[in-house]
């Protein structure tokens, strides 16, 4: 059909709509455009903009066969209490068919404090596992073959230290570093903008990150050195377009820092990975995944002149949206997570964590985690969604939405360029303010009823408080401190002192790569708090400025 014919048909249809809505008004708060036709994507060049899986600009996916070869990695984020408890949960997950590990660390670990630090009181083992030294890390991965499993660690400011501990545990297992597979989050910029577990100011933080890029490119070549994360930006309240735009702007900043440090784009870009949120609006999410791949491919090719295809591929881990889980009628969350899973899979994710139904209330129980994992397995094996590549391509709506999200993302990226890049935009509070405004709008839309959340502002029922929630007892903190003190009494404290002095000198020399020095300190059983303490002394700490 020619475009003229479609246009004529559309006009006829629009006239009929006018008549229909005069009798039956549409629901309020809908997207402006009700229907998409070939006219909405008439300017989209298939070969240039959509193309083929595994080929530039990767709109349709990063691998040629996608899930027809192998499903995404089913990677469940877990960790709580002590290393021994978390080790049990990891082995349970592996036995249940999880294909990768994902470690959650408690807040003291994430912010570089030991469990016996005054500021750690009440937080030890709460949102993840407490790791004070290599001794805890040895327990965490006991009887787990690090040569076989791939491990993702949600660790940012002290990522270098936890990576060093992982390498050291592997060494003790007899697994060489160049065999290790996994990811460290290592994305400090989104910590300043959205997640809050920063330690040092941006400059030394960027140095630590580029040190890791360089060290791993030579010594741990299969390791994903960063997971540039939009997940937390979205959780903090951003829109879909803001999620990918702010994250890709962060990605640009990391590349620029690494290039400035003397690295070549194709030597590290292939190890960069991303982390998206799978939110409630299924089709918008699918379009977001597709748009993000296209934007990143263009950034790498046109801005950084990358030549290796791998450098241009946006590989992504996904987690379903924690902030969309409701405390009300928690079993409804199973359905939300299933839809979000469908979006992530149709969007072409490389790995996925599915949230558990009870996470608006507490850490998930084993039974809830099992349902969440089974949700992925049902989508993989039963739904058919994984059988044909990029199944929504060619939908007038999804292609138009992909174009729209891409356009909005470029507008933000250009704006951030004008401000002076992501670091400057964060220092000026621009990104934080944009996210806060979106979060506030969302909340007001829910309160006005413009947005319906089932069980929260519609279809509410009287409920009994849920039973059987997982609780981390306060005694965990006490026991962890005792273990820490026992370990300190046993280690060679002179060796620790020497290693920390060596690390301090290295911190003061900007041209020195810190990784070998951190690894050396880790081997002496210097604690995370001691190592980060030395870095705090030299680098100082970041102070946030909040504009409400």
């Amino acid at each position, binding site marked *: 059909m020619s475009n003229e014919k479609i246009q004529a048909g559309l006009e006829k249809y629009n006239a009929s709509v006018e008549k229909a809505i005069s009798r039956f008004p549409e629901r309020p708060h809908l997207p402006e455009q009700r229907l998409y036709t070939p006219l909405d994507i008439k300017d989209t060049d298939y070969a240039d903009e959509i193309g083929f899986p595994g080929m530039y600009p990767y709109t349709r996916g990063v691998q040629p066969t996608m899930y027809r070869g192998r499903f995404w990695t089913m990677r469940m984020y877990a960790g709580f209490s002590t290393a021994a408890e978390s080790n049990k949960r990891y082995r349970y997950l592996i036995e249940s068919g999880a294909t990768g590990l994902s470690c959650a660390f408690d807040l003291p670990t994430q912010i570089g404090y030991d469990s016996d630090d005054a500021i750690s009181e009440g937080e030890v083992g709460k949102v993840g596992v407490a790791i004070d030294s290599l001794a805890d890390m040895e327990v965490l991965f006991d009887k787990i073959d690090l040569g076989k499993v791939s491990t993702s660690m949600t660790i940012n400011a002290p990522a270098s230290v936890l990576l060093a501990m992982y390498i050291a545990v592997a060494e003790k297992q007899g697994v060489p570093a160049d065999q290790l597979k996994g990811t460290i989050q290592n994305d400090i910029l989104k910590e300043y903008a959205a997640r809050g577990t920063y330690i040092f100011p941006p400059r030394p933080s960027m140095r630590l990150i580029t040190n890791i890029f360089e060290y791993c490119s030579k010594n741990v070549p299969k390791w994903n050195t960063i997971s540039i994360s939009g997940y937390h930006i979205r959780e903090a309240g951003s829109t879909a377009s803001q999620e990918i735009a702010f994250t890709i702007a962060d990605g640009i900043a990391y590349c620029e820092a690494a290039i400035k440090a003397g690295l070549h784009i194709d030597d590290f870009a292939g190890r960069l990975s991303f982390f998206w949120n799978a939110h409630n609006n299924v089709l918008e999410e699918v379009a977001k995944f597709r748009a993000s791949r296209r934007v990143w491919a263009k950034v790498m090719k046109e801005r950084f002149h990358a030549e290796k295809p791998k450098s241009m591929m946006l590989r992504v881990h996904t987690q379903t949206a924690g902030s969309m889980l409701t*405390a009300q009628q928690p079993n409804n969350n199973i359905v939300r997570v299933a839809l979000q899973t469908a979006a992530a899979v149709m969007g072409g994710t490389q790995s996925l964590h599915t949230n558990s139904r009870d996470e608006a209330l507490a850490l998930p129980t084993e039974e809830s985690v099992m349902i969440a994992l089974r949700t992925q397995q049902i989508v993989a094996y039963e739904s058919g969604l994984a059988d044909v590549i990029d199944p929504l391509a060619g939908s007038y709506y999804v292609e138009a939405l992909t174009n729209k999200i891409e356009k909005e993302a470029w507008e933000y990226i250009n704006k951030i360029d004008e401000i002076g890049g992501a670091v400057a935009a964060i220092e000026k509070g621009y990104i934080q303010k944009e996210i806060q405004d979106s979060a*506030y709008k969302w909340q007001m839309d829910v309160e006005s009823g413009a947005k319906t959340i089932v069980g929260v502002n519609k279809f509410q029922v009287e409920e009994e408080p849920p039973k059987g929630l997982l609780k981390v007892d306060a005694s965990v903190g006490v026991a962890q401190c005792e273990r820490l003190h026992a370990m300190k009494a046993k280690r060679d404290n002179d060796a620790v002192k020497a290693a920390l002095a060596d690390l301090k000198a290295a911190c003061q020399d900007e041209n020195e790569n810190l990784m070998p020095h951190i690894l050396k300190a880790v081997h002496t059983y210097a604690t995370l708090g001691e190592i980060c303490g030395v870095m705090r002394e030299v680098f100082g700490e970041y102070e946030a400025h909040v504009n409400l």
Partner: protein
Amino acid sequence: MEKRIRVLVAKPGLDGHDRGAKVVARALRDAGFEVIYTGLRQTPEQIAEAALQEDVNVVAMSILSGAHPHLFPKVVNLVREKGMDDVLIIGGGVIPETDIPALKEAGVAEVFTPGTPTSAIVDFIKANVK
């Protein structure tokens, strides 16, 4: 003119989730209160001191990390120790229903859990501030 109600929105502990705290801070401001937000990673001592310095009527704390059983009561005690007997202390976050009685026992006037409309917090403050 009637004195405007002053609220300290505070993030005790190491938790970095501040979407809720910021949304509540803004909603309280839009409701006509004067709002001071502490920012992240405040010790109970820092929060009590800020409450005193800012001469607030309300301290509103938010924790999503599970550290509330330890930190909420600590803030209450320090605020009272500094002689702020009339200051209304409320809390919110990912807090299991079963933890709430103990928090109230410790002096937290009300606990707001996920899904609470900000208007409920505004109404509670208006009804209970002294």
